[in-house]
């Protein structure tokens, strides 16, 4: 279940088990990934603010979506309340900084931990219930947290929201898109590497085992309750960190943003990207962040002919999200990750594709 499939070039024989346990299937893919990250380091130097903004969004949403994929894609549970954790992390980080004076640098990971506690609390019923009942329970947690955001003035600033300071390090403020990009990139690399490691070690395998066959997982010594609850906790940790990054980027956190719609968008990211796929999560997030942009761009194109279109833009965006989910469920239920694998396989075998 590591990033790579078992598609490696022939002649590539492994002589050590260690070389068989890497995140990337071949050294080449590893170098490519590292090169890609290095290339990303140069984006702020050349990218327009528009591009940077989109990439930062992909970053923090991607981290949160990865957490959701852990609970839904890897552990096989359902969660309809992920955006509430995202919001909780954003508020928690702002609160830690504003009220307790903890520097943003530490507030972000701490906010992740606080959100994890909230996730564990919500996850407790998950140790006992499954399927539709769990869906309802997580939905309830979404609304309870939303209500909490609106009422807990001390924590969230209530209806007026909370200010979130910029991220600073040794007196340097990361208050531009160019600089904040690096903060987000750091967390993206950290969280995605962490997850890749997790999935190829003991507890990650346990999560997948619980998903694939919980009865035999239990016979293999896996404590089902512990892993079901923990997967919620861990997923909330990711959402919390994503949310904290979001808050300190915007500089302001308000409760309206963390609704069920955003929870569904998170689900869309992982369904479109591929349930149980780490890099699919990023592909799905890119898709979901770019989709509204694409819609805006194409309505702009047609607005000359149909001026009414601009007014209905909001509806069109939401419909497009729904449509994308449905189309993916019908035509590519295994998500973009699977499509990408097939494309790679095609080129590897080209021209003997059959």
């Amino acid at each position, binding site marked *: *279940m590591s990033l790579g499939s*078992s598609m490696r070039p022939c002649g590539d024989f492994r002589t050590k*088990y*260690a070389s068989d*346990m890497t995140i990337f299937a071949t050294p080449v893919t590893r170098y490519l990934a590292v090169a890609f990250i290095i290339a990303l380091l140069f984006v702020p130097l050349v990218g327009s603010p528009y591009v940077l903004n989109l990439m930062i969004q992909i970053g923090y949403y991607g981290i949160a979506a990865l957490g959701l994929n852990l609970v839904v894609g890897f552990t096989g549970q359902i969660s309809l309340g992920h955006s509430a954790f995202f919001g909780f992390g954003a508020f928690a980080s702002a609160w830690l900084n504003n009220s307790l004076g903890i520097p943003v640098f530490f507030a972000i990971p701490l906010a992740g931990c606080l959100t994890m506690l909230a996730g564990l609390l919500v996850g407790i019923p998950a140790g006992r219930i499954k399927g539709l009942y769990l869906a309802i329970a997580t939905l309830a947690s979404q609304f309870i947290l939303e209500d909490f955001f609106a009422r807990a003035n001390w924590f969230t600033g209530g209806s007026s929201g909370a200010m979130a300071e910029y991220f600073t390090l040794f007196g340097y403020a990361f208050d531009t898109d160019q600089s904040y990009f690096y903060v987000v990139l750091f967390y993206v690399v950290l969280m995605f590497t*962490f*997850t890749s*490691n*997790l999935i*190829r*070690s*003991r*507890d*990650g*395998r*346990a999560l*997948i*085992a619980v*998903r*694939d*066959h919980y*009865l*035999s*997982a*239990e*016979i*293999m*010594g*896996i*404590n*089902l309750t512990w892993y079901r609850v*923990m997967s919620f906790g*861990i997923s909330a940790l990711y959402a919390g960190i994503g949310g904290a990054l979001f808050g300190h980027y915007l500089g302001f956190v308000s409760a309206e943003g963390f609704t069920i719609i955003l929870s569904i968008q998170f689900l869309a990211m992982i369904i479109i990207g591929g349930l*149980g796929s780490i890099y699919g999560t990023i592909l799905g997030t890119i898709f979901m962040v770019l989709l509204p942009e694409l819609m805006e761009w194409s309505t702009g194109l047609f607005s000359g002919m149909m001026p009414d279109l601009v007014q209905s833009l909001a509806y069109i965006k939401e419909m497009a999200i729904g449509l994308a989910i449905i189309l993916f469920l019908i035509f590519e239920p295994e998500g973009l990750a699977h499509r990408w694998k097939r494309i790679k396989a095609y080129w590897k075998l080209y021209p003997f594709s059959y």
Partner: protein
Amino acid sequence: MGENTALLQVENISLSFGGVKALQGVSFDVKSGELFSIIGPNGAGKTSMLNCISGRYHPQQGEIRFREQPITKLKPNQRCNLGIGRTFQNLALFNHMSVLDNIMVGRHHLLKNNFLTGGLYWFTGARREELEHRQQVEEIIDFLEIAHIRKAQAGTLSYGLRKRVELARAVALKPDLILLDEPMAGMNHEEKEDMARYIIDLNEEWGMTVVMIEHDMGVVMDLSHRVMVLDFGQRIAAGLPDEIMDNPLVKKAYLGEEDEQPSEESAGVGEVA
């Protein structure tokens, strides 16, 4: 452990599902190092018996002791720490995982790395630990001759291979007692021979005590040290393979002859205590 102490003691187990009495007062024990078979017609309660030992079912009555320690109340995941492993009659692999990962799950209770140390992999010793266990898992893979499919997705394999992977996963638990539910069902002659050889090796060379359910009488009689026969949830006989073969009650249960009622005193003939 002394020669005569039983590794597993099953005492007066009764289990029912609503009106169905799956097990009625079944007792037996298995000595350390033994290869013990449970046979009986379909629906006799054999799988239910294994489920009670592995903890999937909780009997309404009776007690099960492992190394003289009562385990009847323990959860399934606690029993594998004590040294009990099993395979399933209906395949129960993790279908989306590779064969290798399936078997590595068997090491779960022996591994120490967790969410945090696993995620930090290189810095916490998780890598070294995984590697050590990977080496031991490879030994199991070699022993069961599944090296060629170790990277395949478990769900895509043939029935016979899946049975073998399931055995590998149970062996990876490092159990002292391994419970095999029809390990040869649905296999062709050649696959059965291989499987029989693996089971003998596990018993003799790996030192595992085996409790096996099997329908193939030839295999049972060849492999087992002792055999117990269940019919309608009751133990109708237990003893050495030869004694079982000659037991009229067993013949009747299998052939379904309809002559006189079974006389009570003949139940339990050939018991070797």
